[in-house]
C-alpha cells in the first residue's frame, strides 16, 4: 500500500474502478464503494441494465441509482432508468457509496463503470516542487481520454443490451408465427368438426 501511495503522489494517477455489473434481486440494494482521495475530484461513470429474460414480458421498468457521500448525504439519484451516464464533483474526500436498487421482483444485471479523476491544481503545484505545469496538461489529457474510454464502455454495454433484445425479438417472431399457424389450423378444424356435428343425425334430430 505504501509503494502505491508514493506512486500516487508522484505520478498523479487517477483512481479508477473496474466496471462491474450486478444483478440486483427482489427489493434489494447492491452497493459498491469507491474511495475518493481529493476533494473536488470529478467522479464520472455510467451504468446499463441488462435484462435476464425478456421473452414473455415487456422491458423491465428500470432500476434506481443512488450515490451517497461519506457523510451520508445523497449526492445523486436516478430513478426508473435502464442505463445512464452520471458525473459530479466530489464535495469531500472519503468513501463514496454507489447503490443500485431494484424495486421489482425480476433480477437484473447492471453493468457499470466509475471513474474518479484528479487534475492537479495550483495548490498541488505549489506544494510539490517536482510538479510541472506540463503535468497538469498531461492530467487533463488523461481525463479526456478516460471520458472516451467511459463512453466506449457505455456503448459496449448498451450494445450488449440491444443484442439481448434483438435475439429475444427474433425468437419471439418465430415462436409466435408458428403458434399462429398451428392455432389457425386447429381453429378451422374445430369449426369443421362442429358443423359436421350440427348436421349429424345422432344429435338432436334436425336441429338446424
Amino acid at each position: 500500500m505504501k509503494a502505491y501511495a508514493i506512486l500516487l503522489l508522484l505520478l498523479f494517477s487517477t483512481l479508477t474502478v473496474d466496471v462491474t455489473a450486478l444483478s440486483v434481486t427482489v427489493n434489494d440494494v447492491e452497493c459498491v464503494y469507491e474511495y475518493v482521495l481529493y476533494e473536488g475530484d470529478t467522479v464520472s461513470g455510467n451504468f446499463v441494465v441488462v435484462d435476464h429474460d425478456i421473452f414473455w414480458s415487456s422491458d423491465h421498468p428500470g432500476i434506481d441509482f443512488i450515490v451517497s457521500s461519506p457523510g451520508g448525504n445523497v449526492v445523486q439519484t436516478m430513478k426508473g432508468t435502464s442505463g445512464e451516464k452520471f458525473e459530479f464533483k466530489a464535495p469531500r474526500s472519503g468513501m463514496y457509496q454507489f447503490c443500485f436498487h431494484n424495486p421489482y421482483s425480476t433480477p437484473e444485471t447492471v453493468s457499470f463503470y466509475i471513474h474518479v479523476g484528479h487534475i492537479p491544481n495550483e495548490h498541488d503545484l505549489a506544494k510539490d516542487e517536482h510538479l510541472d505545469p506540463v503535468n497538469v496538461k498531461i492530467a487533463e489529457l488523461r481525463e479526456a481520454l478516460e471520458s472516451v474510454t467511459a463512453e466506449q464502455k457505455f456503448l459496449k454495454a448498451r450494445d450488449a443490451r440491444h443484442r439481448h433484445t434483438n435475439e429475444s425479438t427474433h425468437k419471439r417472431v418465430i415462436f409466435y408465427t408458428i403458434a399462429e399457424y398451428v392455432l389457425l389450423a386447429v381453429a378451422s378444424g374445430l369449426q369443421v368438426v362442429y358443423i359436421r356435428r350440427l348436421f349429424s343425425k345422432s344429435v338432436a334430430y334436425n336441429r338446424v
Partner: protein
Amino acid sequence: MWRSINIVTLIVTLILRLLASSQLVNGMRFDLETGATKCITEDIKINAMTVGKYSVVKPVEGFPLSEDDRITVRVTSPHGNNYHYADHKESGNFAFTAGEAGDYMACFWTPKQSPEKSLSIDFEWKSGLAAKDWSKVAKKGQVEMMELELKKLYDSVTMVHEEMFNLRAREEMTQHLMRSTNAKMATFSFFSLVICLSVAALQLWHLKAFFQRKKLI
C-alpha cells in the same frame, strides 16, 4: 458444484468490464454477507494477460481478522475450467493468460456465521493492457516519469482504437441479426396469408363434399 453448494436467496452476479488505465490504488469494494455468494464476471479477450487481487477489509484497523472472516474464491473460464481456487483465505491474488475468449467469473463465498454480518472485500481485476505492471517500467527521476505518463496515455489510446474495432464488429452482428429478423417476418407473414387462404379453401371444399354427401345441396 458452485451452484449446488451456494443456494442462497440473494445470488448476486457481478460482471466486471475492462478497465482502461492502470494505477489502481483501491479497486472496487463490495459487501459479502455471510453464507452468500457473489460472482464477478469479466469479458476477457483470448491470450490477454489478467491480474486480480482480493482482500477482506479489516473492520477495525490494527486488529487481526477473526478465523471466521475468511473467503473462498474461485475463478472459472467461460467453458467451466478452473483457473484459480483459494479456500479460507484473508487475501490473495491470481494471474493468468486467458486461454478462451469470453466471460470469466470470479466467485466469492464466506461461511455462514450465527450473527449474520457482512464482510467488505476489496477487489481489483485488470486484464489486457491495463494489467501491465507500471511500477516495473517506472524509473527514477522526473523526465522518466513524464515519459511513463505519456507511455500510459499511448497505451490507453491503443486500447481505445482496438475497442472501436470491436464495437464496430459487434454492431455489424446486431445489424445482421436485425436484417434477418426483418426478412423472416416478411416470409412468415406471406406464409401466414397462404396458410389462411388454404385453410379456408380446405374448409369450403370439405364442407361442400360433406353436404353433397348428405344430399342437402
